[in-house]
């Protein structure tokens, strides 16, 4: 009996393992190797020159790399937290609505239908300082006389990118948290109400702990998938001007293809993977903790 139970999960997990090994692990080994070579796309023979840790030494001693690294961490922190808060708010608003749930839920997911590169173009045009929608609106409403250089000033550009990113990804949090709210058993809430809890207390001590695992699932999915923000940033500023919005991904992509220095780019990529791993493990822990809190077994 015991032996059979052991084989069941193995069998169930096998397809996932095979697909991931083929598409992720094998290419990853290749790129890991190439991070120790001076591999240039236009000179394939360089793939076989081994230069040890030189790529890593170079990027680690490059101040610009660390600035981009720090900025990426900051963007992730800001964007993910705001997305979670806004997603939670949105899910609660939609859940409370008595009519038009279907339409509301569909609208809530509207930004998810936008391909990131489209989001990039869209916000680039909206934030254009001369003829963009945002400045036009502000000027028409008489809020400003100036043409605000949204994508030029370092802080404003960071804000503009964050807004684009948050607009496009809050839905993911909202839909997951909403799904959690819907899956929630009704008795605990009713029991709390009967016990005389205020709506806030009910929310804080009953609802919130229940939906937190879903929020963390969303958080983790997003932290895994943040690199898709690359498409947005690439179109909006591509790290510029003067490196003011440079993120790890824009740096990697430019080094890899435009400069054709694949080896060095892969060394950077390993750093960005490290970053994602740290974020993921962190949220994973949070998730486990939130789960024990609501007593789900692990």
């Amino acid at each position: 009996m015991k032996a059979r139970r052991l084989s069941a999960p193995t069998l169930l997990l096998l397809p996932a393992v095979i697909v991931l090994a083929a598409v992720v692990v094998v290419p990853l080994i290749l790129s890991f190797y190439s991070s120790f070579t001076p591999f240039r796309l236009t000179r394939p023979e360089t793939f076989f020159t081994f230069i040890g840790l030189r790529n890593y030494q170079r990027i680690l001693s490059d101040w610009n790399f660390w600035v981009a690294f720090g900025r990426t961490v900051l963007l992730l922190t800001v964007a993910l937290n705001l997305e979670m808060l806004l997603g939670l708010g949105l899910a609660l608003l939609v859940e409370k609505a008595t009519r038009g749930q279907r339409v509301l839920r569909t609208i809530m997911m509207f930004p998810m239908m936008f391909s990131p590169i489209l989001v990039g173009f869209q916000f680039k045009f909206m934030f254009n300082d001369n003829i963009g929608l945002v400045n036009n609106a502000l000027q028409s409403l008489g809020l400003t006389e100036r043409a605000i250089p949204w994508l030029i000033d370092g802080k404003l550009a960071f804000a503009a990118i964050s807004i684009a990113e948050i607009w496009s990804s809050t839905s993911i949090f909202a839909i997951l948290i909403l799904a959690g709210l819907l899956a929630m058993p009704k008795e605990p809430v009713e029991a709390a109400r009967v016990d005389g809890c205020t709506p806030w207390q009910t929310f804080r001590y009953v609802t919130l702990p229940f939906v937190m695992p879903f929020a963390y699932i969303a958080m983790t999915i997003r932290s895994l998938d943040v690199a898709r923000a690359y498409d947005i940033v690439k179109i909006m500023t591509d790290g510029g001007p003067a490196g003011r919005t440079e993120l790890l991904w824009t740096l990697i992509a430019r080094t890899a293809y435009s400069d054709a220095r694949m080896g060095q780019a892969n060394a950077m990529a390993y750093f960005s993977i490290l970053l994602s791993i740290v974020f993921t493990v962190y949220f994973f822990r949070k998730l486990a903790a939130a789960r024990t809190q609501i007593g789900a077994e692990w």
Partner: protein
Amino acid sequence: MNRLLSGVAAGALLLVSGVGMAQAADLPGKFPGVTIDAKLIGGQQYEKLYERIGEWEKATGAKVNVLSKKNHFDLDKEIKSDIASNSITWCVGSNHTSFAPQYPGIYVDLNTLLPKEEIDAFVPANIAAATLDGKLVMLPRAQFDVSALYYQKSLYQDEAKKKAYKEKYGEELAPPDTFDEMAQQAEFFANPPDFYGTQFAGKEEAINGRFYEMLVADGGEYLDKDGKPAFNSEAGVQALDWFVNLYKAKAVPAGTTNYLWDDLGQGFASGTVALNLDWPGWAGFFNDPKSSKVAGNVGVKVQPKGSSGKRSGWSGAHGFSVTENCANKEAAASLVWWLTNEDSQKLEAAAGPLPTRTAVWEWDIEQAKSDPYKTEVLQAFQEAAKNAFPVPQTAEWIEISNAVYPELQAAILGDKTSKQALDDAAAKATQILEDAGKL
């Protein structure tokens, strides 16, 4: 015939060479049963030409198999990936004079495959730009790009402006002939945030290219004779200062350092920019009331002169190349010829882009006779084309560009002085060339 034979020897296709193409009159030739794999640049405005591929197939009996159609930058990525993975199994590829030096050795010398009189029918400067180390690596199509100055005509007919300008500078107000005049007028016209004197592309290869041509116009060199970066010279500082001062004076939109070509075109079409140094591809767009506020009010003039008296003329041309790995080089060359021959160029040029064959230029100007705007455009660009020069033909051009442009931006935004920025950029460029074993 000798040249032809040497080409054929490599191809080992003696059967086909029997019906080969020693004479231009024999083109496009007959290649029954041959299949040519091609990678073409995609994008709706480049597509019209590809309908002619069907006619070539009919005329030659060969087949064309389009492996990929992508925009320029993705095609570049793809070709680099192909080089890296040793999978250049195709015959004909789209190419561009600014990118061609990066693909060392994958394309054949078309001089060996096509009759001389056909190559002589192209504008010599275009052929020179397509020739690397004596090898003609591509034949340019009618997608030749050099910039000219677009301006709003009404500004120069406005009596009040004329008078004010004369009072302020003691000169008549007329479309500028030098970059100093252009900067002066840009500052004069500017009224931010509603109206700007001019604008420039502010990032990536675009700003580097603009800086490069300004540098040449000011009498400087980007790379010196030994291939060493030489742009941090006095001329370099002067060239960069032109951009810096316009930015400081708020004569350009504050966002200009993040602009690429699309933003510039949209900006000028919105009627909020007085002077715009831009590409021929926009000429139709600017004068079309559906897309542009300034339609009917657009003037075009040859590019201004720099301080050395030379006019700027950074240029590039799209074209087609034949790979070394191609099994049927004659057939491939015939296709390349077909896509760039007179009929093809007329087809493309009719929609606006500039041709690269002398005969088609004449035809184009003849066609435009009844259209004063188009005549003005063509005359300006024909004049501009005379000053055209390609980018330095080094494989590291794009990489250098990527290292240099953030420094140019830093100077424009005031983070660094021009000299400082150029010195830093030159140091980076030198390192790149050293890494590549060129210095």
